[in-house]
Every structure is written in C-alpha cells, then in structure tokens.
C-alpha cells in the first residue's frame, strides 16, 4: 500500500516537474511579447478564422519542436507522445498567458469575448513555443562540457569570485538582457497607468513564483549546481527574494536610463513602473542565475 502511495506521489511529482519546466520555458521565451501592445491589438482585431489558423500553426510548430526537444525528460519518439505533449504545451500557453493578461488587466470581465480570445491566442503562440523549447533553454550541450565548466568554475570561484557576488551579478545581467528590450517601450507607462495596489501585489507574487519555479522547481540542468552555490543565496526562498530585489534595482535603472523615470516623478510612479518591469527582469534574473 505504501509502495503504491510512494509511486503515485513520485508520478505526480514528475508530472508537476515537467509542467513547471514547460511554464518556465514559456515565460523565458514569451515574456517580451506579453509586454507588446501591438500583439494585444493584433489579437483583438483578428477575425475568428485567423485565430483558428493561429492555433493550428502553433500546434504544428510545437509538434515538430516536441519531437526534437520538448519540455519532458523523455523523448517524444512516438507520434502519439508528441501529439499529447503539443496539446499540453498549447494549453499551458493559454492558461499562463490568460493569467498574465488578467494581471495586466488587459482581460477583464468587461472585455468582449472575441477581443479576449484574440489577445489570449496571439499571446499564447510565443509562450507555447517557449514551452516546447524549454529543454533547449539553458541546457548544457554535453556531459563533457558540463564537467569542464564545473572544474573551471570551481577554480575560478576559489580564485576570484565570491558566490554571492556571482549570483547578484548574474541576476543583474540576466535582468538587463531580458528587460532591455521592454524598458524603453510605451507598454510600461501604459500598464502602470491602469494598475492599482492589489494588482501590483499580485504582480510581485507572480514574479517571485515564476522566478522560484525557473531556478528551483523546473529541474533545468544547472539546478544541482545552484543548490551547491555558496553565499547568502544558499536558501531557495532567500535567494528568490534577494534576487527579486536585485531585479527590481535593475528594472529601475533601465527605466531611468531610457528616461521613463526621473527624479522629479513621485515615488509612487517609481514603484508602479519598477514593479511592472520587475516581472520580465526577475524572469531574466532567474535565467541569468541558471546560466552561470
């Protein structure tokens, strides 16, 4: 009885792991387009036949990707496996993008059904591609490479790098890489104008959850290494929180650099803009920490 319970638990754990890995890959790939209002608009005005074609095309591409990479540990050799995983990838895309669009208040109870579906389907295309590519992201090319890199990193760290500084640096650089294309756009002030306190709190929570999922829950190849990392970032929860703060600093700097924020603006504007930019920045920061 206990063995059955154990195997059932491990089955669900494995499944959850695959799904979280897919979600993480989706966010890494899909986040820039989630912050692109043109995609919301194109989706809003797209006619239903075009939406159905978009779903069919996405399914085809995701199906092909699933046969080579995918988001599971196992390879989709059989047609049936690739079909099942493609359906899952698109459903993950639809579910996650709907959550983000609700958080951005781009989909509300007042949004007409056709518009909501258009936004959702167009935004879920890059997300689903990210899900199907998640094994490819940040994955070491070979065991040999991994071994070499580990040795290299060990000696490098001993010589010059403190683990904490390396983590802060990686988070910062990752935040900049992902956030730099979003920070100068009009989407940030636009989203900031329509948001309020509770939504910002939800956005902070979502940023923390996604960052945690990418680094600790998605079983990407470098996670074991992350858990061995030294410094104040040793604990997953404190690492997630501190990294989020680093990502917020990077977000604020990027916004200031692109003149979206200046010292004359009130602190509430700084807060709103920075929290909104904090989501892509924390996704980038998480990816950065996995990459080192």
């Amino acid at each position: 009885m206990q063995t059955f319970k154990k195997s059932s638990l491990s089955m669900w754990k494995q499944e959850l792991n695959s799904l979280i890995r897919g979600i993480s890959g989706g966010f890494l790939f899909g986040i820039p387009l989630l912050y692109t209002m043109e995609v919301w608009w194109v989706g809003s005005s797209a006619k239903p036949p075009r939406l159905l074609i978009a779903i069919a095309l996405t399914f085809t591409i995701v199906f092909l990707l699933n046969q080579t990479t995918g988001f599971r540990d196992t390879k989709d050799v059989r047609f049936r496996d690739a079909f099942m995983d493609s359906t899952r990838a698109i459903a993950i895309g639809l579910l996650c993008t709907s959550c983000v669009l609700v958080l951005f208040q781009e989909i509300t109870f007042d949004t007409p059904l056709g518009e909501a579906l258009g936004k959702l389907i167009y935004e879920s295309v890059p997300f689903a591609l990210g899900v199907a590519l998640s094994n490819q992201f940040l994955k070491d090319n070979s065991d040999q490479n991994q071994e070499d890199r580990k040795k290299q990193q060990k000696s490098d760290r001993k010589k010059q790098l403190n683990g904490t500084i390396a983590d802060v640096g990686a988070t910062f650089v990752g935040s900049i890489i992902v956030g730099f294309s979003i920070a100068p756009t009009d989407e940030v002030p636009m989203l900031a104008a329509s948001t309020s306190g509770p939504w910002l709190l939800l956005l902070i929570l979502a940023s923390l959850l996604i960052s945690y999922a990418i680094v600790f829950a998605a079983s990407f190849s470098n996670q074991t290494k992350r858990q061995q990392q030294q410094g104040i970032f040793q604990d997953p929860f404190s690492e997630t929180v501190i990294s989020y703060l680093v990502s917020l600093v990077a977000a604020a700097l990027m916004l200031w650099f692109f003149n979206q924020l200046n010292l004359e603006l009130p602190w509430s504007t700084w807060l709103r803009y920075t929290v909104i930019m904090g989501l892509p920045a924390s996704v980038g920061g998480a990816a950065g920490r996995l990459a080192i």
Partner: protein
Amino acid sequence: MNTQSKKIQPQDLPKRSLAEWITFGIAVAILSTVIGLVSYVWLGKERQPPVLSITYEKTIRKVDGQFYVPFILINKGGETVESVRVYAELVINSDFKEQSEQEIDFLSSGEVQEGAFIFSKNPQEGKLKLKVESYKLP
C-alpha cells in the same frame, strides 16, 4: 555516442502514467473550450457591421474653472473598428460655441470606452451635442 537513441523502439518506451493522461485530459478540455468559443464568436455577431453609439453622463465635474463631461462610447455591432473620432459641441445662447474632439484607437465588438470632454463653460447652461464622426476598419 548517440547510437543508443537510434536503437530505441516505440515498444521499448515507457507507458504514459495516469498523471500524464489526467493532465492531457485537462489540456484537451482547455484547448477545446478555446476553439469552441472562437467558433461561437465566428458564427455569432461577427458578421454584423460596427454600430457605434456615444452618450454622456449628467454628472459634470468642475475643476479649476473647467467642466469635465464624461462620455461612454460603445460598439454595439459585430466588427472591430479603429481610429474612432468622437466630437462634442457646446452652444450657449447661440453666441458662444466651443468644440472638443478626440480619437479612440481601438474599439472591438461590445467594447465600452470611457473618457471626458473638457469645456471652459458650464454645458448645463447650453446645448451639448455629441457624435461619432468616423472610424476605419482594421
């Protein structure tokens, strides 16, 4: 060496677990719901042309000597429209005329857009006319 992967036969692969079948079932339900809703929209109002209507609210705000008249613009038709131009004209005792206009980027079927026209005199003392001037199809 990758020769091992070539040797894998479909019958050697592990069977899908119950958890995988359950999540697949949920995924099928989500995808079918979305496809069903898109088809519903397609067969429903989509074929109707846009019908735009604008109304204003009686609750006029006065701030710093300016009068704010809130308006509501609705697309009651089926098709989405772009660049909707709305226009308001205030006439008081036929000797004072003030106009205000603005453009709404985007209005999909059933969408409601709110905004306000701003006048220097109290619209309640005269006659206020609101109209939708034009739009274009995306």
